[in-house]
């Protein structure tokens, strides 16, 4: 299967390991992610002003790029891009008058006609590839590995955009099971990581991340998986500050779900120390899940 792929800015820069592992893992499942030839920033963080049409230009322009390429579907790995693009796609379909205004503004582009479906990789795995097929592709079952799925906000909210039950999601748990590992449930798995406050209020975010990580660890998690470069930054890189605030805090590796897939598929080269603050490799080597 070939599918149009929107990587987003983060996956081209600080989260290149997310992009690499996503392409490798999906490739192993026979899904080729075909990057759009031209694309721009998804638009990120939805604006809190009521008059925010200007903010929809970026996502709609990307939908036009997909339409231009003759694609009806656009898949993303980043939860933030997924949320922004899907929200815009649904919004302009529900509000033709807004779309008309946007199209009139984007007068150098062909009109966006609607109809491009925005998908997250996890949906593609669940609904089309199927977790059974994922399980079949596993060459190194992650037996006994206790992994805490972390959803954050962007995969789950708002209703209509979220890809699973916002109160009790299970899609990441199913994936973890398919890879042979053991999911560790936590009541904080759908709580916000602190998002952009990480720029201006590092400590607030560090304290939040501390709670989320400690809760997972106290339930036996040895690693945590995420689908968002910003969540990962807050949960992983902020561990430096967490250690300063709490000397007894034990580091917890944070991986992208695609890295966990790559690991179980035997695609070790897709798992690099770059992009991680807590290098997950020593721990995986110790558990004999990664060759030394």
């Amino acid at each position, binding site marked *: 299967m070939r599918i149009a792929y929107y990587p987003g*800015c983060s996956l*081209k*820069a*600080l989260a290149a390991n997310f992009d690499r592992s996503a392409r490798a893992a999906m490739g192993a499942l026979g899904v080729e992610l075909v990057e759009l030839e*031209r*694309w*721009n*920033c998804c*638009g990120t963080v939805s604006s809190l002003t009521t008059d925010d049409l*200007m*903010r929809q*230009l*970026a996502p709609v*322009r990307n939908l036009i790029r997909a339409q231009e390429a003759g694609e009806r579907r656009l898949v993303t790995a980043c939860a933030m891009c997924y949320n922004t693009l899907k929200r815009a796609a649904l919004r302009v379909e529900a509000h033709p008058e807004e779309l008309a205004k946007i199209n009139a*503004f*984007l007068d*150098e582009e062909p009109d966006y006609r609607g109809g491009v479906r925005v998908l997250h990789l996890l949906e593609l795995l669940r609904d089309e590839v199927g977790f059974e097929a994922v399980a079949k592709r596993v060459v190194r079952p992650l037996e006994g590995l206790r992994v805490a799925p972390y959803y954050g906000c962007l995969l789950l909210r708002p209703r209509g955009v979220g890809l699973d039950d916002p109160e009790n999601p299970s899609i990441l748990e199913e994936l973890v099971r398919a890879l042979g590992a053991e999911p560790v449930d936590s009541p904080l798995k759908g709580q916000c990581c602190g998002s952009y406050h990480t720029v201006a209020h590092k400590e607030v975010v560090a304290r939040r991340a501390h709670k989320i990580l400690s809760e997972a660890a106290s339930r036996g998690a040895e690693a945590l998986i995420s689908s968002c470069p910003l969540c990962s930054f807050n949960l992983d890189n902020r561990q430096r500050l967490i250690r300063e605030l709490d000397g007894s805090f034990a580091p917890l590796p944070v991986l992208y779900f695609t890295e966990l897939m790559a690991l179980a598929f035997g695609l070790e080269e897709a798992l690099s120390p770059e992009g991680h603050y807590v290098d997950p490799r020593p721990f995986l080597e110790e558990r004999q899940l990664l060759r030394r």
Partner: protein
Amino acid sequence: MADREAVEQEERTSLAEELGVRIYIMGKEYRVPAGLTIMKAMEYAGYKFIRGAGCRAGFCGACGTVYRKEGEYKLRFAVACQKLVEDGMFLVQLPFAPAPRVSYDLEKLRPTENVLLKLYPELARCVACNTCTKACPQEIPVMDYIQAALRGDIKRVAELSFDCIQCGLCSMRCPADIKHYHVAQLARRLYGRYLAPKAEHLAQRVAEIEAGRFDEELDRLTRMGKEELSKLYEARQIEEGVGV
């Protein structure tokens, strides 16, 4: 049909030559001969350029012009030394763009993913409206290079912005107050300093020069008188085997 169109076109041209074209400079109407560039037309009308003109050849970017044509809703952009006047142009010069350049020491920077964003954080405010691209007289995909800058792709910024003449028109139109051409210049500097493949033949030639390979020749030339020099110049070889 085509003939008639050609005839009409010719009639229009000769009429314009006779009467001149109507242009409006800062709101005041002038009639100027057709076929002049905006810059020459303004000089014809009596304006004198003591700023806002440089190369007069479309390279220096000093002569940014904003205009609107009668009956059109869109602003248009050009460099005054290149664009010919058209009937019904409302013109204004934009000789300088107040878009400050951040100061940096190239030797202390590294071509990392976030270096552009760090020095020009307003990059993150881009809403992908593409207004910058529409303003560029060089037809550069300005938004695309800003987007590449946002994702830290220095090489792509350098490539896409290569023809930028730093007129600043993009930066005067951007709702996000981005300083496009300074970002692009920084990217090209980083690219040249750290990323572009090194020219080996250049290093070789520099080494040859330093080793004194051309010293004797140079000494000979410096000792020559004017007459001898111009003789030598005239007899120079322009193409292989062809003298002047």
